[in-house]
C-alpha cells in the first residue's frame, strides 16, 4: 500500500487521518524531530518502530530493530546523551530487560529528549503476564504520561520530548493494547526536521554527568534526581490533557487515566449520569497531580478510581486523601469495585460506576439464558501453527525422537515465539491437576501438547541447565527457541552451558524472521529495519565459536532426517545444538520464495485407514470426517509442503500434478 509512509511523513498540519495508537506515537516522535529510534519487536508495541522505520530514510533519521530491548534502550539513551532526541519502544516484558540501565540512567538523566514508550497488555492478549509498567516510572522517579486515545498518543509523545528536555530526564509514555492496537481520528501537527548536531560535554551542568561513579558519585546523583521531583509535580498539574469537572452536589467523583478514562466516559453516558458525577482525568498517572486531585477529593463524599492495570493511581490517591480529605471514601480495586485482573472495557466500567453509585443494573434473565444456549453453538477456533509451518516438522521429529530415545519422562522446555503454541493445548482440552510423587509421562497427541515448561524469552535453555544440575535422570532434557529469541536472550545461557558443563539438547527453530510479532527481521535475516541489506549472522557458527561440541543443521521439511539429528543429539550425551532451519512459510509465500501451487496434495481414500496420525501432525489444512473416518486436505489452506505425506504410514497422501 505504501500509503502510511506517505502520510506519516507528510508535513500537513491540520490534516485529519485515521491512525493506530502505535502509529500515532510514531508520528508524535516524528513531529518532535526524533533522530534515533531503537526497539525490539513485541506485541502490542511493534508498530511504533515499524512506522518509524518506514519514515526513517525519507526523513533522514536512524531507526533500528536492536537485538533486544536492553540494547535498544542503550542505543536510544546513548543518542540522547549527545543532545539529540531519541525514543525506545517495547512491550511490557521488554521493560524487565532494561531495568538495570533504566534505574541508573535517571541519576544523570539526558540532554536530548528521551522517551521510553511501553505498551502494556492487560488481559495478556499477547503476553506471558499482565504487569503494569507504570510502577517502573515510580521506581525510577520519572514522570509517566498515559494517553486515552490516538490523538493524545501522538500529542503526548511529542510533548514528552519537550518535557524530557525541560527536566533533563527520560519521560515514560505508557500505552496499553486498547490504545496501541486501536485506531482513531488524529489531527496532524507540523513536522520538525531531525537536524540537531550531536555534541558531547562530559561535565554538562553536573560534574561527571554521564558517569554515575564520577564524583560526587551515585548518592549525590540520587539527591539530584530527588531535587527534580518538585519540578515534575508542577509539570503534571499543567498537562493540557488533564480534565477536571466538578459537579455541584455530586456525591461521587471519578478519577481515571488513559484508556480507562475513555471507558469511564462511555460508561457514564451509558448510565445517563454524566451530569451527576464529578470527573477527573489525569494525563499523568505518575506522579498524580496533587492539587487537581485534592480539588476533586474535597468536593465529593466518595471517589472511584478507574485505571487500567494495578492500583497505581489509587495508592497515590489513598496517601493524598489521608492528608487533604480524610473523610472521603475511596473505591476501586482494593474495595472490589474494579476487578483485580484482566482488562477493563465499557461494560466493566459501567458496572463499577453503577456499584459506586448504588445503582441497580437491570438484568434481562431471559436474554442471558438464550445467550447461554447459543454459546453452545459457537465452536472454538483454536490457535494453530500455519499450514506448512516448519515448526510443525520440528515438533513432529522431536516427538518421534523422544519416543525412541527420550527415556520415560523427557522434559521439553519451551520459549516464546510462534512455536510457543507447542504448549497451548488442543481444542480447549483441560487437564485435572495432578500430584504425583514420581516423574509422570503424559502423551503428546498433537504438537500443541509438546512444551512442558514455558515462561519468557530465553527462559527455556536456562531451565534445562538447572534440571541437569539437579540430577534429573528420568528422561532427556530438551529446550527449544526461535532464531530471534536465540539472539535476544540465549547467548549468555549457551556460554553458561559450555562453561558450567550442562548437558541437554537445544533445538533452534530457525525460520529466519521474528515471525510471531509480525515478521520483523533479526540478525540472521539479512536485512535491517529500514530494508537495507545486512550481515546474516550464523547461528551454528556462533555456537561453534562458543565451544559447543555438537552442532548440526537440519531441514524440518525432512522429517526423518530431523528426527535422526535430534536422536543423535540426545544420544551424544553432550550439550548439543540442533538448528532446524527453514524460512517461515507465510513469509516465504509473501516474498515469493516459495511457490506452492505446482501440485495438489490429496488423500487417497482407498488407502486411508482413518488412523488419524496425519491429524496428530497438527497442520490446520488437515481435515477429518468423523462419520466416514477419512482424512482430507483443505485445498485452499494446503501449501503442498509434503510433510503430511511423510507422516502417513499407508501412503494415502499423494501429490498430484494440477
Amino acid at each position, binding site marked *: 500500500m505504501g500509503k502510511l509512509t506517505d502520510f506519516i511523513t507528510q508535513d500537513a498540519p491540520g490534516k485529519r487521518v485515521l491512525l493506530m495508537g502505535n502509529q500515532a506515537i510514531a508520528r508524535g516522535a516524528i513531529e518532535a524531530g526524533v533522530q534515533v529510534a531503537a526497539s525490539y519487536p513485541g506485541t502490542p508495541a511493534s508498530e511504533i518502530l515499524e512506522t518509524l522505520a518506514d519514515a526513517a530514510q525519507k526523513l533522514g533519521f536512524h531507526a533500528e530493530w536492536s537485538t533486544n530491548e536492553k540494547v535498544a534502550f542503550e542505543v536510544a539513551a546513548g543518542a540522547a546523551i549527545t543532545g539529540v532526541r531519541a525514543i525506545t519502544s517495547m512491550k511490557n516484558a521488554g521493560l524487565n530487560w532494561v531495568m538495570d540501565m533504566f534505574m541508573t540512567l535517571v541519576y544523570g538523566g539526558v540532554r536530548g529528549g528521551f522517551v521510553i514508550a511501553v505498551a502494556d497488555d492487560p488481559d495478556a492478549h499477547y503476553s506471558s503476564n499482565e504487569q503494569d509498567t507504570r510502577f517502573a516510572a515510580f521506581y525510577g522517579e520519572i514522570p509517566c504520561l498515559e494517553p486515552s486515545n490516538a490523538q493524545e498518543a501522538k500529542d503526548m509523545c511529542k510533548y514528552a520530548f519537550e518535557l524530557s528536555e525541560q527536566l533533563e530526564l527520560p519521560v515514560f509514555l505508557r500505552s496499553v493494547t486498547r490504545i496501541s492496537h486501536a485506531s482513531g481520528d488524529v489531527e496532524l501537527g507540523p513536522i520538525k526536521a531531525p537536524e540537531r548536531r550531536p555534541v558531547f560535554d562530559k561535565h554538562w551542568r553536573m560534574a561527571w554527568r554521564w558517569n554515575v561513579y564520577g564524583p560526587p558519585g551515585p548518592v549525590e546523583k540520587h539527591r539530584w534526581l530527588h531535587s527534580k521531583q518538585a519540578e515534575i509535580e508542577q509539570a503534571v498539574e499543567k498537562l493540557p490533557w488533564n480534565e477536571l469537572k466538578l459537579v455541584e452536589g455530586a456525591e461521587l467523583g471519578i478519577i481515571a487515566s488513559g484508556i480507562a478514562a475513555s471507558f469511564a466516559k462511555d460508561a457514564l453516558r451509558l448510565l445517563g449520569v454524566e451530569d451527576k458525577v464529578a470527573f477527573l482525568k489525569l494525563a499523568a498517572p505518575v506522579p498524580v497531580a496533587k492539587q487537581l486531585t485534592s480539588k476533586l477529593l474535597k468536593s465529593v463524599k466518595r471517589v472511584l478510581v478507574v485505571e487500567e492495570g494495578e492500583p497505581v493511581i489509587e495508592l497515590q490517591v489513598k496517601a493524598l486523601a489521608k492528608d487533604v480529605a480524610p473523610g472521603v471514601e475511596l473505591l476501586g480495586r482494593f474495595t472490589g469495585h474494579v476487578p483485580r485482573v484482566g482488562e477493563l472495557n465499557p461494560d466493566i466500567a459501567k458496572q463499577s460506576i453503577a456499584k459506586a453509585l448504588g445503582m441497580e443494573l437491570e438484568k434481562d434473565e431471559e436474554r442471558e439464558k438464550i445467550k447461554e444456549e447459543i454459546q453452545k*453453538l*459457537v465452536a472454538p*477456533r483454536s490457535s494453530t501453527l500455519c499450514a506448512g509451518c516448519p515448526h510443525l516438522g520440528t515438533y513432529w521429529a522431536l516427538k518421534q525422537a523422544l519416543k525412541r530415545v527420550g527415556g520415560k519422562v523427557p522434559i521439553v522446555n519451551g520459549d516464546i515465539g510462534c512455536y510457543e503454541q507447542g504448549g497451548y493445548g488442543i481444542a480447549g482440552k483441560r487437564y485435572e491437576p495432578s500430584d504425583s510423587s514420581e516423574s509422570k509421562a503424559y502423551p503428546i497427541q498433537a504438537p500443541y501438547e509438546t512444551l512442558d515448561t514455558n515462561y519468557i524469552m530465553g527462559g527455556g535453555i536456562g531451565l534445562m541447565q538447572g534440571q541437569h544440575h539437579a540430577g534429573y535422570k528420568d528422561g532427556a532434557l530438551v529446550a527449544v527457541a526461535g532464531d530471534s529469541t536465540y539472539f535476544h536472550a540465549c547467548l549468555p545461557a549457551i556460554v553458561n552451558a559450555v562453561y558450567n558443563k550442562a548437558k541437554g539438547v537445544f533445538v533452534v527453530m530457525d525460520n529466519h524472521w521474528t515471525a510471531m510479532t509480525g515478521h520483523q527481521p533479526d540478525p540472521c535475516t539479512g536485512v535491517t529495519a529500514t530494508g537495507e541489506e545486512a550481515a546474516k549472522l550464523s547461528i551454528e557458527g556462533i555456537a561453534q565459536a562458543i565451544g559447543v561440541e555438537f552442532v548440526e543443521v537440519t531441514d524440518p521439511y525432512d522429517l526423518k532426517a530431523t528426527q535422526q539429528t535430534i536422536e543423535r543429539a540426545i544420544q551424544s550425551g553432550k550439550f548439543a545444538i540442533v538448528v532446524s532451519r527453514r524460512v517461515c512459510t507465510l513469509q516465504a509465500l509473501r516474498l515469493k520464495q516459495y511457490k506452492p501451487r505446482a501440485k495438489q496434495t490429496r488423500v487417497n481414500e482407498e488407502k486411508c485407514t482413518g488412523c488419524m496420525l496425519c491429524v496428530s501432525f497438527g497442520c490446520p489444512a488437515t481435515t477429518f470426517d468423523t462419520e466416514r473416518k477419512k482424512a482430507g486436505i483443505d485445498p485452499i489452506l494446503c501449501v503442498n509442503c509434503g510433510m503430511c505425506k511423510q507422516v502417513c504410514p499407508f501412503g494415502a497422501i499423494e501429490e498430484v500434478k494440477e
Partner: protein
Amino acid sequence: MSELNLIIAGVGGQGSILASHIVAIAAIKAGLRARVGETFGAAMRGGAVASHVRIGKTVEGPLVPCDGADVIVAVEPLEGLRNAVKFLKPGGLVITNIHPWYPMDVNIGRARYPSMEEIEQAISKLKGKLIKLDATKLAQEAGNVRTANTVMLGALAATGKLPFPAEVLKEAIKENVPPKTIDANARAFELGMKALSK
C-alpha cells in the same frame, strides 16, 4: 442516529481489519469522529478476528459495549455468531457471508460447526435481523477471492446504516486497497451492493 456501533468479524487473512479501517477512514473523510478497536491473535492465519468500529460525536473508547452493536458484518459465519451472542443490540442487524472457514477444532472432529439454519434461529432469538449473501462467490466473480471483505462492505453500504454516502466509502476503498486490486475491489463493492438491493 448520533452514534453507530459496528463490528466486522472474520478469520485472520480475510481482511476484516482492513475493512474496518476503511469504514473509519470514510467516516473521517465525512467529517465524523471514529474509533476502531481490534482483537486479533499473532501474525498467523486462521485465528478469530473482530474489529469494533464506533462512529459519532460522542464515542470515546474503541470498544462496543455488550448488546451494543447496531450492525455486525461477518466475513465468516461462525465469527458473526461468536460476536452476535455477546454484542448484538436487540433489533440490530447481522450481515453474513454464508461461506464457512472451518476451525481446526471442527476439521479434526473435536467440535461441530453450526448449520446456517441454527445461525439464523440464533440471530432471531437474539432479536436481531439477518441478511445472508455468498460473498466468497461474489468475490470470485469480481475476479479476486480475497475481496470478500469488500463485497461485505458493499452490502453494508446498501443497508443505509452508514452515516455517510456510499460514494465516500468507495473512495476510501480505492485509496486503501493494494493498487493492483483496485478494479477487483470496485467490482466486489458493486456486487455486494447489488446483492442486497435484489
